[in-house]
């Protein structure tokens, strides 16, 4: 090829890469667009899908920027006055932290979307070859897929220099994460089918290993006859079904306490708070803490907008490709099957919150360098889900023991993972139970054993469905037959 033409082409490619591929909002818009085109939707719908995905992602970035600013007095104050780092354990705060960490490292977050795509395609392949792989479920929970791609790609990039910020790192992350989705959602199929009396889905979310463990442990530590349905929970707890109220209340308690400990003098000296303006300190604290909920809300509405488009195209693609496989969906889909009519959801949440608060007290008493702040998503959704499963398989006693321990593990494992991954610097960590236990272990393996650990862990995961199949050849594939 003529060298000037080659240079010209390279220039065009570089321009395309910098302006489209490396701009996550536009790149993810293109993914939706391709999905809609593959589904042969009319042109105006393809266009709308592209626009809503891109606009949604930019809204997410507005919320994210707000959170970072709002965090500044708290992170600075804790570091300067107490030499302490704080991380909110919540997947949205974790996402925010990874975005910040990527920006600081000079990497584009579009790479995360590429890892996500590879993981999704790998999960499809594993299901397509199910006679050999024994995988029956496809992970379809869009917002969770992106959150997990964020955290896992960061874990791999920082641990293994050979995989840092390059295509091999993206592929390794995609394979590892896609295997986790396929294998662990497949593991939840039996307990979920038993809970729902064959509703025809598995859980594809943030606590899949924990659900499997709960279904195994609950019958041993409890008695399923003692369900929580006989429990009269106080009515005010219902208010925590409302995510706006729950998130704001948590932020008010935790950040409010921290701001009061830092005190008006310190915050005034650092020019965060201006007493001369006549603003009450109490009002400053209230306004600052409530704004965490405000930005979280903006961020989530952005996510909701673009994930809706992405999920549409993902589901459309999978429905075309994989007849006979089962969807792995959001954990909240199990709540309708709570045999205590929703009581286990609230009671699991309360027990998990107690576990988290006790563990946080422990961090303070033992002067941990990393302070953990409860986030709404893990404390509610993980514990509510484990609550529903624990109550079904082991009743009240199992629910209390499992959800309280889950709360404790979320805080201790989250603190460990935030430290290992360095994400505490950015004020947040993923925080859902699988990501405080299994993936804390994975992150440690990546850092100690490097590339071979990814190969070994992936192979170990792939062996799990083989063992499941060997134990239950007769009904393994028919057990999960959907009712529709």
């Amino acid at each position, binding site marked *: 090829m003529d060298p000037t033409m080659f240079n010209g082409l390279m220039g065009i490619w570089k321009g395309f890469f910098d302006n489209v591929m490396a701009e996550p909002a536009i790149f993810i818009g293109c993914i939706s667009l391709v999905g809609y085109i593959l589904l042969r939707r009319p042109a105006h719908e393809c266009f709308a899908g592209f626009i809503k995905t891109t606009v949604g992602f930019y809204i997410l970035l507005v919320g994210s920027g707000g959170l970072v600013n709002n965090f500044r007095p708290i992170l600075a104050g804790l570091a300067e006055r107490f030499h302490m780092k704080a991380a909110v354990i919540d997947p949205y705060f974790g996402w925010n932290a990874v975005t910040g960490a990527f920006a600081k490292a000079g990497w584009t977050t579009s790479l995360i979307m590429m890892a996500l795509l590879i993981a999704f395609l790998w999960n499809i392949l594993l299901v397509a070859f199910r006679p050999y792989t024994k995988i029956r479920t496809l992970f379809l929970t869009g917002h969770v897929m992106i959150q997990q791609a964020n955290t896992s790609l960061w874990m791999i990039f920082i641990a293994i220099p050979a995989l840092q910020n390059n295509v091999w790192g993206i592929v390794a992350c995609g394979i590892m994460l896609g295997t986790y989705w396929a294998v662990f959602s497949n593991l939840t199929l039996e307990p979920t089918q038993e809970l729902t009396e064959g*509703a*025809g889905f598995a859980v594809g979310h943030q606590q899949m290993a924990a659900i499997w463990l709960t279904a195994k442990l609950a019958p041993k530590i409890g008695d399923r006859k003692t369900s929580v349905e006989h429990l009269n929970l106080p009515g005010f707890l219902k208010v925590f079904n409302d*995510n*706006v109220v729950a998130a704001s209340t948590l932020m008010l308690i935790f950040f409010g306490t921290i701001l009061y400990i830092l005190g008006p003098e310190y915050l005034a000296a650092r020019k965060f708070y201006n007493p001369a303006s006549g603003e009450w300190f109490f009002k400053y604290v209230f306004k600052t803490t409530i704004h965490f909920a405000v930005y979280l809300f903006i961020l989530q509405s952005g996510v*909701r907008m673009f994930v809706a488009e992405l999920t549409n195209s993902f589901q459309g693609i999978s429905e075309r490709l994989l007849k006979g496989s089962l969807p792995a*969906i959001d954990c909240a*889909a199990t709540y*309708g099957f709570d045999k205590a009519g929703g009581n286990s959801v609230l009671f699991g949440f309360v027990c998990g919150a107690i576990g988290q608060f006790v563990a946080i007290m422990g961090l303070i008493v033992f002067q941990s360098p990393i302070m953990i702040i409860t986030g709404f998503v893990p404390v*509610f959704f993980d514990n509510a889900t484990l609550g529903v499963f624990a109550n079904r398989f082991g009743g009240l006693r199992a629910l209390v023991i499992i959800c309280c321990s889950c709360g404790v593990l979320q805080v201790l494992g989250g603190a460990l993972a935030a430290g290992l991954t360095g994400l505490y610097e950015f004020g947040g960590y993923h925080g859902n139970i699988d990501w405080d236990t299994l993936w804390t272990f994975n992150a440690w393996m990546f850092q100690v054993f490097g590339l071979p650990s990814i190969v070994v862990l992936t192979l170990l995961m792939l062996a799990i469905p083989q063992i499941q199949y060997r134990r239950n050849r007769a009904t393994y594939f028919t057990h999960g037959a959907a009712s*529709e």
Partner: protein
Amino acid sequence: MLKVIAACGNGMGTSQIIKMKIGNVFKRLNIQVEVGHMSVGEAIGQAGNYDVVFCSDSLAGSFKAGGKTKIIGLKNLLSEQEIETKLKDAGLA
């Protein structure tokens, strides 16, 4: 045109699933609808602006009964049959 919302805890996962299933059912019944999705927290405040609110059975109690808005709690979010039966029971199809 019927105005419908699907609601769930955080307005992310399950409400999106319900929304897609509702869309399929109304298409089959040939009823014109506008379906949105959001969190239960938002939906409690906005329910009055809609004709029907769908959510998981366990969350249906968060909404005030009565009023012109129909609240439909679903057990199996993936079951189009359940959606259809409950729509018929509510006199909407």
